[in-house]
């Protein structure tokens, strides 16, 4: 395979007809569902004028909320990458009674109304809850603190990592691991140098999905976070608060900032993914 520079072409020849209608439909559909609503935000934000927008955006409460939102999402996504990969490994590599059940349970965060999840988590992690009462003597408070936000975001993001890594992991040949073993690699070296690099593209995809989901999460977080301004108030909640105050300009400004940051982060992750996919090949 060589990567000879080819002339850019608008249309790739294909045996399946209908390029025109398909592309037209895709653009129309994406416009209606995604682009037009989002450009509404951009327009409203632009109407504020640069100085107005800047004043709203650099409001300390807004900045803190954004920091909490993106920070907690990032931590949650990282935690999910580690443990989600582990869960996928257990599900793929081991056969044990109840494996099917656990496999099904991984999807529950997809299906459960997030408010229900938030209430359940808050109940368990509250200082008098099952887990909270165990942590309280250690001086660890989860519910109604930023830690609670992270727990809720881990909960909603977990299936994204498991479900993207699992199928790719199933494709890894035993041969490759055995080859590493015959070459003298220990189990740890095999995992670190052979298996994980092969899973990198899938793990990155899982990370991006989990992170994106966490940034947009609202329902589960507000029940467990305590929602103290400057401490445990997430940006989506602040948008709702501004709306309830009929402060549409403030809501729009926060939304626009979130939009821009999210877009660039996902775009960057996408670039890394493309690069690693080309290099590593699994799931390409």
């Amino acid at each position, binding site marked *: 395979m060589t990567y000879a520079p080819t002339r850019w072409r608008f249309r790739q020849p294909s045996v399946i007809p209908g390029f025109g209608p398909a592309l037209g439909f895709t653009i129309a559909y994406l416009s209606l569902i995604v682009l037009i609503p989002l450009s509404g935000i951009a327009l409203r934000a632009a109407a504020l004028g640069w100085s107005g927008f800047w004043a709203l955006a650099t409001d300390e409460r807004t900045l803190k909320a954004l920091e909490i939102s993106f920070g907690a999402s990032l931590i949650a996504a990282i935690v999910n990458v580690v443990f989600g990969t582990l869960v996928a490994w257990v599900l793929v590599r081991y056969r044990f009674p109840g494996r099917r059940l656990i496999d099904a349970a991984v999807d529950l965060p997809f299906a459960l109304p997030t408010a229900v999840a938030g209430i359940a988590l808050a109940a368990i992690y509250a200082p008098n809850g099952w887990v909270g009462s165990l942590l309280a003597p250690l001086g660890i408070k989860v519910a109604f603190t930023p830690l609670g936000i992270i727990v809720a975001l881990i909960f909603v993001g977990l299936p994204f990592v498991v479900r993207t890594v699992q199928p790719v992991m199933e494709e890894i040949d035993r041969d*490759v691991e*055995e*080859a590493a073993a*015959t070459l*003298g690699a*220990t189990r740890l070296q095999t995992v670190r140098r052979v298996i994980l690099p092969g899973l990198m593209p899938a793990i990155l995809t899982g990370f991006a999905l989990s992170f994106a989901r966490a940034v947009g999460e609202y329902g589960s977080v507000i029940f467990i976070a305590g929602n103290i301004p400057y401490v445990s108030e997430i940006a989506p909640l602040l948008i709702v608060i501004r709306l309830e105050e009929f402060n549409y300009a403030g809501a729009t400004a926060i939304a626009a900032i979130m939009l821009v940051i999210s877009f660039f982060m996902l775009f960057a992750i996408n670039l890394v993914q493309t690069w690693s996919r080309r290099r590593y*090949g*699994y799931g390409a």
Partner: protein
Amino acid sequence: MDVSIRNVRKEFDRFPALHNVSLDIHSGELIALLGPSGSGKTTLLRLIAGLETPTDGSIYFGPEDASLKSVQERNVGFVFQHYALFRHMTVAENIGFGLKVRKGNDRPPNEQIRKRALELLDLVQLSGLENRYPNQLSGGQRQRVALARAMAIEPRVLLLDEPFGALDAQVRRELRRWLREIHDTTGHTTVFVTHDQEEALELADRVVVMSQGRIEQVGTADDAYDRPNSPFVYGFIGDSSTLPVRVENGEIWLADRTVGLQVNDVPDGNASLYFRPHDITLLDGCGGCIAGTVATSRRVAGTRRVELEVGGSQHRVEIELPIEHVAAERSRIAFRPTRWKVFPDAQDSTA
């Protein structure tokens, strides 16, 4: 490195894959494990590598009992049928992997690993491809890289599991010759598994013919082809025809007439006569012969392959005739094998 397999037995979930197999492999030898699928040849190879552990018995590398060691400690080079290259590493990184994962003083510095990888790449005639990734190589090239990778660790034994199985016929033949050259240059003790008898007979110093978890015969290509020691080997290696016969006082009888062949080491009773289609002479009259009517006649390369029905339509044997021979349908042909072997039937030998 001499490899000695002593009374090795292997069961998978109570299902026996190998029964009490013993085999001595001499240092520097190129040995083929040949057999149909399910004969246990791959299991035996994996046992030598340490990828499986024997249920019973032991495997010695020289004087030491290798069965007590893990795969990592055995220092064997293993080549897989589907290459098993690390696809996120370049060719050079793949080859250097075995050296890179070594610990402490055993681990050569990076430049040396790279140098060694380039040397091996030269040996397998792929110089210049060191920065490619495996998915940028053809099948034959990938298998060469896999071999270079296996050789990089200076293995005590080189083990190849159907190394050319996934390649097309032309590349197989080329790589076969090339593997023999590499073996002669490097002198590694080498064991390879194949179900392709042509490959085994052409390539190996000695061939180990296996069937149903047992070793049937160990010998050179000539031994296996000219002096098969069991009906299985006779039937498996090369073309052969077989007929049920009866031995009486050293005389071979086919139904109620004599074939005109004598044996002296086979007990009286029912037996099977084996011969190769081309080891026959045609007879005019039939004073002791095998006679049959022509069922089909095909032209195969330089000869004519004729299928004869012997004794009604019960038994068919194949013989090779010169192309000039017409072998018209339903005509009668009489012949006698020139090289052949009689194996007494199993139930008679136990009776």
